[in-house]
């Protein structure tokens, strides 16, 4: 478990994170939602230890995870902008080499296989890949060193349907192996396997609750999207179509069930 306790952070004189207390469990998919500029990316930089809190602390309870910040793999927005190696192989193994990870080539084979990458692209320049392939390569460069937590900042941005699906399936297959934190404005594809949702607005935590208990109206009102099942469920209700539950299901399959019954 990684915890933020009363954490605040200032950029110059502006407090962008305000006394935020939040915990991140292993084996949990935790979705951070909030309007652009709410402080979500700053929060994950605190979580990764890239910046230090102005007040409060980020920690793992005694005896749980030592040097936790080294075990967090972060996929930042537009990760492909950070490429600098001559070929895909070097790009993927760069971080693992720096961390002194052993058995790199065996791990690389596993990752290439797991992510469905064409082994031939390992010798290609990362700059020549398609947009979607670049994102998968950036993802591979993190997974190869087995992080305990995977933090994904807008991982679907700019991806087409095929790559969104591929990345969604990959994230889902990792959810029992590591803690996953996702920041996304387009979370429709992952909402069916999200465990917890936290809403951040103007640097403050509005709520952190299990996905089943989320008040989606509150999420909508601060300027974010809500799952399309919720949006459609509301429209159906307002057009007099009955659903079996008072609370509108947040997944497509949940809504279909509520309609069938």
């Amino acid at each position, binding site marked *: 478990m990684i915890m933020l306790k009363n954490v605040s952070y200032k*950029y110059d004189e502006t407090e962008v994170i305000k006394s935020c207390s939040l915990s991140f469990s292993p084996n949990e998919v935790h979705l951070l939602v*909030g*309007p*652009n*500029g709410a402080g979500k990316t700053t929060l994950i930089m605190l979580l990764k230890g890239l910046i230090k809190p102005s007040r409060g602390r980020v920690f793992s309870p005694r005896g749980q995870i030592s040097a936790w910040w080294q075990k967090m793999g972060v996929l930042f*927005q*537009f990760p492909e*902008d950070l490429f600098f190696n001559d070929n895909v192989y070097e790009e993927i193994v760069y971080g693992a080499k720096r961390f002194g990870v052993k058995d790199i080539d065996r791990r690389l084979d596993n990752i290439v296989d797991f992510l469905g990458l064409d082994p031939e692209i390992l010798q290609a*320049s990362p*700059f*020549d890949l*398609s*947009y*979607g*392939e670049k994102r998968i390569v950036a993802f591979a460069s993190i997974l190869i060193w087995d992080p305990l937590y995977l933090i994904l900042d*807008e991982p679907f*941005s*700019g*991806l*087409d*349907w*095929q*790559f*969104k699906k591929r990345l969604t399936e990959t994230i889902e297959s990792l959810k029992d192996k590591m803690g996953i934190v996702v920041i996304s*404005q*387009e979370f*429709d*594809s992952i909402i069916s396997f999200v465990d917890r949702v936290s809403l951040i607005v103007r640097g403050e935590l509005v709520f952190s609750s299990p996905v089943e208990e989320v008040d989606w109206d509150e999420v*909508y009102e601060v*300027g*974010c*999207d809500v799952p*399309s*099942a919720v*949006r*459609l469920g509301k429209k*159906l209700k307002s057009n007099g179509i009955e659903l079996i539950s008072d609370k509108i299901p947040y997944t*497509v399959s949940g*809504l*279909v069930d509520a*309609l069938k019954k």
Partner: protein
Amino acid sequence: MIRTYSLILKRSDNVVIQDFNFSWNKGENIVLVGPNGGGKSTLALGLSGILPVEPGSIVIDSKDITDYDLKSLRKKIGIVFQDPETQFVTTDVWREIGFGLSNIKEESSRIKERVECVIEDFNLRGILDRDPSTLSAGEKQLVAIAGIYAMQPEFLIFDEVTSYLDRKSRERIYELWDSIASSLMIITQNFQEIGFGDKVILLDDGKISFEAQTEDLEGSAHFSYDSDFFNLLKKNQNQIPEYNKIVEILK
């Protein structure tokens, strides 16, 4: 009007757009969709004169693109990218909006007049002194658009500009598109943005694989889950909103 004749565009020696013939009428709004790597951004860079044409030609208002100087080309066509930070070069919003104009050597009185006008149009008065890099993603994108819009290009390309914006910021861009509503090219993975076009073009493997007037796509026949249009999109691995599955169940 912009026309391409047997256009070929390359990225790092790879042919991305091949033998491409296309026209974009003044006033016409085009939505360009298609898979990653299909050539959308490459076409946008080519049309805006950023990538060299080799071979083939791009003709803008009866004049070859290579015959334009930078100033007159930027007044013809502007482009806004997905990641606005790649466009920022100054440290305050006012200068950022005016940068494009000063880069094409407009007179300072003209720059001032245009920047002030755009600030009002885009409602940016409250953030003028801020460093663009410290703005929220939605604000950054608006500033990037404002900087291009200030040059009053006749044709304007938006390359996936809403893809990581929150709902409210996205709706603000939509309002802007509604208010400009002329000679826009909107490149998107968001199926809901198709409605902003008079024409929708699906670009795959560097070629147009589907093209239709948007009004011909309206109505349930085209948007049902097993329509030709959807099958084509599926085949081309494009985005299909999940709620269409529910719409189908409800039929």
